[in-house]
Each structure stands twice: as C-alpha cells, then as structure tokens.
C-alpha cells in the first residue's frame, strides 16, 4: 500500500535537496513519514532527509522501500504548476503512478535492493551557528573566483570565511548577533572544504533559508535546515580538506 497526496512544492524540495548528492535513492516510507539517507559515490558528502507525514494531505502507507531516480523525478515534476497537488500511488505492475491536475505519469521503480544504508559518522562539533543561507552563498560565490576551496575560521565573536590562491585572497567576516546567532560554542574551530561540493550543496539548500551549521577542527561540516513549512528536515555532511605538515 502506497498512496499519498502532497504539494508539488514539497516534492520538488525533497528531490532538489537530494540531487547534489546522488542520482538514485532508496526512499524509506514508514508510518511516520519518509526518510532518505544517501552518500555521494566518492563518499565526500552525505544527506539525511526526513519528511513527516504531516507534510501530506493524504498518507496511506505500509512501511516499504522505493528506488527512485532523483534527476528524472525532478524532470517529471516540471510539468506541474507550483500550487498543484500531486497524487502518487503504486500500481499493480509496481510502477509509480504520479498524477498532477490533468497530467499522469507512470514511472518504473529503480531496483534498490543493492543500495546499502550509508554509515553516518558520529560527530561532536564544538561550534554551532544559525544563519541565513544567503550569507554563506555570498562567501562561496566570491571565493569560487579565487580558489577551489574555502576555510571557515570561527572564534567567539565572529566567523571568518577565507579563500586564497597565489596572491589573490578573499575574506568575509560574519559577526555574532548580527549575521549569525550562536547556538553553542565550546572552543574555536577551523576547517576547509572543497568549493565544488559546497556550492552543489548550497543549491540543495536554496536561497534565503535559515540554516544551522556545525564546525569542528579539520572535521566534517554539518549543515541542517527545515523545509516544507517545517514538516521536513535535512542534514548534509561534507568531508573537510585537511592541512598536513
């Protein structure tokens, strides 16, 4: 049994958050809602996404796992208007039937039996900040013109984003209480990340969204945010670039 009604906006958010990480996913549909955990093929970035059943107008599901092609789902949803309601169910041939207003698609599922659940590192990160995604995006955009990586350096009072290569460099200061809100701060933290991946993840986050980032010392970045009117929650992890001697 798999039958749901959900806003097209919500579905689009789900797949846009997943698409920077993987092409195909295993969606676990449970009694309380959906969950997807996926790691990119090179194991550099990871996503853990959940969508509560409150996000759905209708939610009739026996727990099951569905294999879906993310890219293609996004393509299919282009046919819908933003306020459309999407009706999805499984037909007897085990195809996903997606209907939105007067449009109906039948989509074969991807075989997800070989997809293993990624191992999620357990991270205790000393710094947690809340800010608007636009602030990060500004720093990332400019640093992409300078280098291929960016450094986050967080002290008590501010978060400094830097990027440098040869003689060029960029520095962006974000201040506590102004551009960001402190959630917790144990000690100063500094980590660098590949811009290629980071910019991809920011596409998944989207513009003008409240996010919480957690930073450690040469440790992965954790970035969390709510979507779909707080019925959805997503968490990205990104492996750092480490300075060795």
């Amino acid at each position, binding site marked *: 049994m798999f039958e749901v009604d959900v806003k097209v906006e919500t579905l689009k958010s789900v797949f846009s958050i997943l698409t920077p990480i993987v092409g195909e996913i295993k969606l676990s549909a449970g009694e309380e809602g959906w969950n997807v955990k996926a790691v990119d093929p090179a194991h550099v970035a990871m996503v853990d996404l959940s969508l509560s059943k409150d996000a759905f107008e209708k939610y009739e599901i026996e727990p099951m796992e569905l294999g879906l092609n993310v890219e293609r789902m996004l393509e299919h949803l282009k046919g819908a208007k933003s306020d459309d309601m999407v009706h999805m169910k499984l037909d007897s041939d085990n195809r996903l039937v997606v209907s939105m207003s007067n449009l109906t698609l039948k989509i074969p599922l991807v075989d997800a039996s070989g997809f293993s659940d990624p*191992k999620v590192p357990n991270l205790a990160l000393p710094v947690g900040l809340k800010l608007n995604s636009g602030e990060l995006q500004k720093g990332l955009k400019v640093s992409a013109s300078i280098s291929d990586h960016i450094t986050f350096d967080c002290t008590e009072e501010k978060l400094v984003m830097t990027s440098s290569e040869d003689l060029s460099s960029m520095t962006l200061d974000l201040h506590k209480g102004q551009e960001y809100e402190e959630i917790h701060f144990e000690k100063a933290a500094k980590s660098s990340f590949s811009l290629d991946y980071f910019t991809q993840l920011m596409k998944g986050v989207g513009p003008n969204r409240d996010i919480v980032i957690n930073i450690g010392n040469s440790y992965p970045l954790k970035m969390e945010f709510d979507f779909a009117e707080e019925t959805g929650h997503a968490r990205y992890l990104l*492996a750092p670039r480490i300075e060795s*001697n």
Partner: protein
Amino acid sequence: MVFPYCHKCKGTKDLCGSGRCPLLEEVRGKIQPMAGTGRSVDGASPPSVFVGSFGYPKLTIGPLTSPTPVPIPERLERSDFLYERSIGDIYSIRSSLVRGKYKVDVGTAGNTGPKGSAPLYDIEPKMQIRGRKILDSVQELSLSSRHIETEMKLTRDLRKIEPVSVDAITMPMGPSVDLRSVSLHENAKVPAAVERSSSDDDVTASVATVEMYDSGIPTDHLVRLLSVGMMGEGRRRRLVPTRWSITAVDDTLSLDKKEKVLELPPLDRYLLYEGERFGNHFLIAFFPPPFRFEMMEQWQQGSLWGEGDVIIDHEGPRGRKNYASKITGAYYAARLSALEHLEMIRRCGGISVIRWITEEYWAPLGVWVIRETVRRALKGEALEFEDMGSLVRTVDRKCGMKGWKKKTKYLNNREDTSLDRFL
C-alpha cells in the same frame, strides 16, 4: 624551427601556417621506410583499419596491409611487441603497412540493417557500390583477431607516395594511397565476445566496449570496431576517426573502472611508482580517498615539440565534464592504466601522474606508449609512505621537471578527505 605553441598543436592544427608540420617533416627525414612499389598491395593485414580525421562528415576509410611478408603479422599492431623495439625499428616495421583510403559518409556505417535484410544499395540506389564494398571489407577486418590476406588495388604507384605517416595519437604507418578496391582472401576469425557485441543492435557502444574488454578483447581491437561503426545501437552507428576512437575507448573503459574503484575500501597509505620508456619518464602516486586524478606533463628541451611549460589537467571526485584539452589523449590512456591498478590492488584512492619527455623521444609513437609504460611501471615495486609530506619530498627528489609543485592540485599539504575517515 620550434614555436612556443608546438605543444598545443602537435602537428594537428597548423598553427605555424606552414601547411605541413616542419617538426614532423624532420622526423620523416630520419626514418628508413620500407619501399613499396606498384599499384597494388597483396599481403597480410594484421588486421588493421584506419579512419582519417579530416573532412568530417566524409571520412577516409581503408585497411592497412603489408606487402612485405612478415612471420607474425598480428605483431605489427600489438603494443606489447612494439614496446620492446627501438623508435627507429617501430617506424620501419610500421611503415611496411600501406594504408588504403576511400572516402565515405560517416552515417554509412549506421545503415547496416540486421542480417538478412536488403543490402544497402537497394535501399539507397545513389550510394556508391564501391564505397559499400570497401566498407564491408573494412568492417570484416575489424572483427578479426587474426591476420587476413588482403589485396588492395590502388589509384597511384606507391613509389610516388610519401612513404611514411607520422601522428601523435595513432601508431605510425606507411604510405597512404587512394583505393580502387579491396578484397579479402580469407575469412575473419571472430572471437565469440566480438561476434555477440557487434551483432547486438540494442546496446550502446559504451556498454559493448566494457563487455568486450571484460571478456579479454584488447583495446586495439575495440578501437578498430568502434572506428568502423561495429558497435552501438543500430541506427546510431557511425564511422569514428581512429584518433577519436582511441581516446573514446580509453575514456569509456576508465569510467567503468572508476565506478568499480569507488566501491572499494580506502587506500590507507601513500604509494609511488616510476617507469620510463622512449624518453617518457613517469612518476605515478596513489594516496587515500576520495578519488581524484591529475596528470602533469612537460616536453623538455630536445624532445619532439621542444621545451614547454608544465601543463596539467585534473578532475575531482565528481569527475570531468569536458575534454582534457591540455594533455589530450595521453590523459585518458594514463587514467585507464592507473585505475586498473587500483582495481587490482582493491583499493580506492587519488592518483597523480607526472610525465616528462626528454630528447630520446624524437618521433611520436601514439598514446599506446603512455598506456603501456604506466601499466608496466605499476607492475614494479612501490615505494610506500605513511604521510603526504614524505611522498611529496620523494616525488620532488625524483622528478625530472621543475615547477610541478606550483601546478599540482593534489600533491601538497592540503588533502581532501572522505567521510569514511571520520566513522
């Protein structure tokens, strides 16, 4: 005369405006070609076929046939045999191969219907029957794993033709002459895997390439099949210039290897291999994941294209979307050999290949030299290191080119990591 842009051109773009590359002309002068005579060639094709790059969408196709009797004709095409010879020998051995050529449209290869269907000249009466016949012979040759006695009738006397062709990507060849006709005096010996994939109209050329390679069909045979339109989905089959086919096969195979390597456990050490052949010096370094690949290269003073800057092409864990336009074909050849090594040692990791070319490389032999030299270097003993710092110091000591440290993306103290490291 060597210009600063010779490295970019490598005899293909006519950047100096001389019409014919003066450096390659000079190479031609140093080569002792095997003399051919007459307006016909009767002898063995190793088998070998060639599709020219110029004049797209009309390309010249034809077999390579040796009028001189050779004990094992297959060897003329085999890189492991040629690898053991000197540059001069390789040129004289290969110059015995006369390249017949005939112009046909690239799409002709795609029109071959399933077996038993009407021949093409019934469907398209305007299609030249001669072109179709030559294409048929060339396709037959491309299937075979054994040499085939081949007769080529030529439009001009071989004595009036320039006796050797020189190119940076493909193997050297003898004179090229316009064909009147081709006839094969034997049947092709077709390996089962080739028979299966070439007759399958429903699989893409990349799937077919990987399937055949995994069944033990060597790369040169795959290049031959791809170039004359013997793989891929029926109507999409095309003639593909030999130069492009070589890179396409290297690229397709290494992407398949990469997918497999990404699934393997992480490499936890730093490894360095070295090798040299024909003045092509290599250092190949492997380091912990994520997968990344870079190749740096420098043509040095006295080498074929004169002294050039250190150039680099690289790709991050997400792979590359455009052509490696600086290093070109060599990039894909080296990437294939390096990924095969990771697959063999069952580890995932990053790769740096450094190549510097010295004066012993006075004539281009083709990218097989890179594929083969890297492959053999990786069969040797590796130096092992505990950290990136020690690896970089040893590379610096062994490396015969300056300025690589400024260019490298991965051999430095900023190491990318994967999440596995934090589990």
